[in-house]
């Protein structure tokens, strides 16, 4: 079907045109958030869910950070008695699990939930109810972990929960089960969100935003979401096998009965290594958004940047054995994984050169978001270099299980993800709240975090080379580790101050920050084409796009989409490749059922730690909730019928 742009009767260029005003009022009414307490639990707007998701993930970041500081206090001097070994084991396990499963991956998805529908120019995320479910199940998973921790049943086998230590023989009690079920919660959440994001990006882009024009951040999210689809089921399956070994005496990891503990390591790292890129790739998306805007020019090397994201994703699945060089994997296999681990430096290096070229050819404005991005480049390059070193088998065998590895992955993860994330907070805070974060505190925030980070983690390289092993709760005097540990602890305090300054900045700016306006950075992507904060329906008219930098390439008379119903939650679905309009789709209304489904699913997951019968019995309320979710309501049904009355697919076929 051809849809020619034509001059319509819609009048008015400004916000004040009377027709726009009445459309706005209709949209306000249709998309308003449901009132009351039940309404709060029924909300399915991607921005509300996204905000809750971001705040929740940040709270878990703080909790994980508090645990980190407790560890640093314990290690500040030799033979410290501040934490005992049992509590220390729980703390480092929960620190790692929190940062990986409850902070890093969720916060990246949370940002995408908020930003992607705005960036592609649609009214809500695809499957908004599933999105709400994804949030609740994530929240309950996190609460579940900390509730058990409070009762001294926190997992204590490390964030990778290696067998046989985590198996039934060496970890009686429920601690290892808590870890395994935490995985189930968080993976379910990550997976459903990945599916929504793929559907949103492929099918709901504004007309004109063909695949070769979507912002690089959006590319980074689609690549990440595909990685999630292939990586997360592996760890979910592995943790299910672990729970089966522990609860119903299967023997997957029991060598006495033909099982193999190394199977666990293979399954875990087949997920665990891509996981690093699942965290890192969205962060590079932030960087590719921020650098061009603050360099005042389009990004250098759009195609190489996209290709490097895609190739990073592919190569990222071929590295997992480099976590297992200290096991008996065959040497030929080790060579392959060494080569692949070094190869991944190529696409990542290419990205860094594209960013440098963008800065080089532009006129950089050194606001806080750009500072964090530059800090990222510095820190991440160091982490990348130690990564190349660790990819080499002989060096890895020396450094394995020492603080050198701890230093490496904190440089990669904090450098590669947390710095860009803070840059992204500064960059998008005005869009989300309508107010800018303070620049002065922002600079303090950056320099404290940057200095604190390097002070904390750089000495750990040296500690590792001096032989300090990971996961020990204390060490003897005279090992030569004392001063470096004290330095790392002091750095941790500075880093904490940096985070505190950020929270103070947020607190002050929410009340007294400078009003942002629609587009304070004069940025190029579609989220800046609407109000700050955006209305519930995102855009008065679904926009169209004429180039890679939607707002910079906009024609003076850039057309908008009209003819979408404002009195029901209708949005436009477009074709995958070229984003030509395909059909109108009525998105679901708010519903309490996703919340109830999450509650019943939580009961099933927690119950199954105690008896296998919780699975068949717990499945009954889950089924009831799902039927409630699926079954059409009177309102939804009537709205759908009225949408369909306009035109049937069969009639369209007949016309063409």
């Amino acid at each position: 079907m051809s849809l020619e742009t034509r001059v319509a009767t819609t009048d008015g260029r400004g916000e004040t045109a009377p027709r726009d005003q009445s459309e706005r009022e209709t949209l306000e009414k249709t998309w308003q958030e449901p009132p009351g307490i039940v309404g709060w639990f029924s909300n399915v707007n991607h921005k509300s869910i996204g905000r809750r998701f971001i705040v929740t993930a940040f709270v878990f970041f703080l909790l994980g950070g508090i645990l980190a500081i407790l560890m640093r206090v314990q290690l500040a001097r030799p033979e410290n008695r501040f934490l005992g070994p049992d509590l220390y084991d729980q703390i480092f396990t929960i620190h790692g699990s929190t940062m990986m499963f409850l902070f890093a991956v969720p916060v990246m998805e949370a940002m995408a939930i908020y930003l992607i529908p705005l960036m592609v120019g649609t009214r809500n995320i695809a499957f908004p109810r599933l999105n709400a479910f994804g949030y609740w199940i994530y929240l309950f998973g996190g609460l579940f972990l900390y509730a058990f921790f409070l009762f001294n049943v926190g997992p204590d086998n490390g964030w990778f929960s290696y067998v046989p230590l985590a198996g039934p023989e060496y970890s009686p009690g429920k601690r290892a089960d808590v870890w395994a079920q935490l995985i189930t919660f968080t993976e379910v959440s990550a997976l459903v969100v990945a599916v929504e994001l793929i559907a949103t990006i492929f099918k709901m882009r504004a007309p004109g935003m063909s695949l070769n024009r979507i912002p690089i951040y959006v590319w980074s999210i689609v690549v990440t979401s595909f990685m999630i689809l292939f990586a997360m089921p592996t760890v979910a399956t592995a943790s299910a096998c672990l729970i089966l070994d522990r609860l119903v005496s299967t023997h997957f990891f029991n060598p006495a009965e033909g099982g193999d503990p190394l199977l666990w390591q293979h399954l875990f790292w087949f997920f665990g290594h891509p996981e690093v890129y699942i965290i890192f790739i969205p962060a590079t998306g932030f960087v590719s958004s921020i650098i061009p805007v603050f360099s005042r020019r389009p990004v250098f090397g759009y195609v190489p940047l996209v290709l490097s994201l895609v190739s990073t994703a592919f190569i990222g699945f071929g590295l997992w054995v480099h976590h297992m060089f200290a096991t008996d994997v065959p040497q030929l296999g080790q060579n392959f994984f060494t080569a692949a681990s070094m190869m991944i430096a190529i696409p990542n290096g290419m990205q860094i050169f594209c960013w440098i070229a963008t800065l080089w050819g532009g006129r950089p404005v050194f606001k806080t978001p750009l500072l964090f991005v530059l800090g990222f480049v510095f820190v991440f390059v160091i982490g990348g270099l130690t990564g190349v070193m660790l990819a080499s088998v002989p060096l890895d065998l020396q450094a394995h299980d020492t603080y050198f590895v701890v230093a490496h992955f904190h440089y990669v993860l904090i450098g590669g993800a947390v710095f860009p994330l803070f840059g992204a907070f500064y960059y998008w805070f005005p869009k989300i709240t309508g107010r800018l974060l303070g620049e002065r505190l922002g600079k303090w925030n950056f320099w404290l975090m940057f200095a604190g980070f390097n002070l904390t983690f750089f000495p750990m390289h040296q500690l590792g080379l001096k032989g300090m092993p990971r996961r020990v709760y204390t060490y003897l005097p005279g090992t030569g580790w004392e001063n470096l540990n004290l330095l790392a602890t002091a750095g941790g305090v500075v880093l904490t101050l940096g985070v505190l300054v950020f929270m103070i900045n947020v607190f002050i700016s929410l009340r007294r920050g400078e009003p942002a306006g629609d587009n304070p950075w004069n940025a190029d992507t579609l989220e800046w084409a609407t109000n700050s904060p955006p209305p519930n329906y995102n855009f008065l008219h679904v926009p169209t796009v004429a180039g890679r930098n939607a707002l910079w390439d906009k024609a003076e008379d850039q057309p908008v989409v009209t003819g979408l119903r404002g009195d029901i939650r209708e949005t436009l679905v477009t074709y995958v490749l070229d984003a030509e309009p395909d059909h109108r789709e009525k998105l679901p209304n708010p519903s309490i059922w996703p919340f109830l489904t999450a509650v019943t699913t939580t009961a099933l997951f927690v119950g199954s730690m105690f008896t296998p019968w919780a699975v068949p019995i717990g499945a009954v309320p889950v089924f009831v909730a799902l039927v409630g979710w699926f079954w059409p309501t009177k309102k939804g049904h009537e709205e759908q019928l009225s949408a369909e009355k306009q035109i049937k697919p069969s009639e369209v076929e007949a016309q063409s």
Partner: protein
Amino acid sequence: VKDRPNIDVSNLPAYGFGHRSLIWWGMLGIIVIEGTVFAVLIASYFYLRIYVRDWPPSTPPPNLIYGSVNTLVLLASLVPNYIYKKAAEREDLRKVRIWLVVSIAFAIAFIVIRVFEFPALNCNWDSNAYGSIVWTLLGTHSTHLVTDFLDTVVLTVLMFTGPLEGKRFVDVSENAFYWYFVVLAWIPIYVVIYLVPYLI
């Protein structure tokens, strides 16, 4: 007042079938996820195979009869699924109802036969690692059979009782799409559980 150029979409349909619909993409995502779960379990099966001399290690190999019969029933169930999928795309309510019910009859048949498959494995999940992996493979696939059966029942009830909308036909069509996956995923699982012990 100057007119603003626009793209009028009011004459577009309110839903589309196949890859045009959002729900197809959602379904594809679920298929990729669950396909990965099956692939991981099959890979684990062969990984565990490497480290023992005899396979199955200490028990007789599975009896082929129930699993093979069930494979035929599963493959046959593609026919009613295909028919109601095509009928849904033509929005032929009568035909959709009839063939949904036929599909449910097939589903009941192979779930019942599946109950006999577990004893035919000739081992228990806690006998050894071999028993663990074949029970888990069969169990995971059976979970898909049961959940897809329940999905189909709910959808069928809705198609009889209403309230009905045109868009429900998209759901019906995608239900068949998922069913195809559950059946086709069974073929490699069947080969692994039932034939591989005789072959290697």
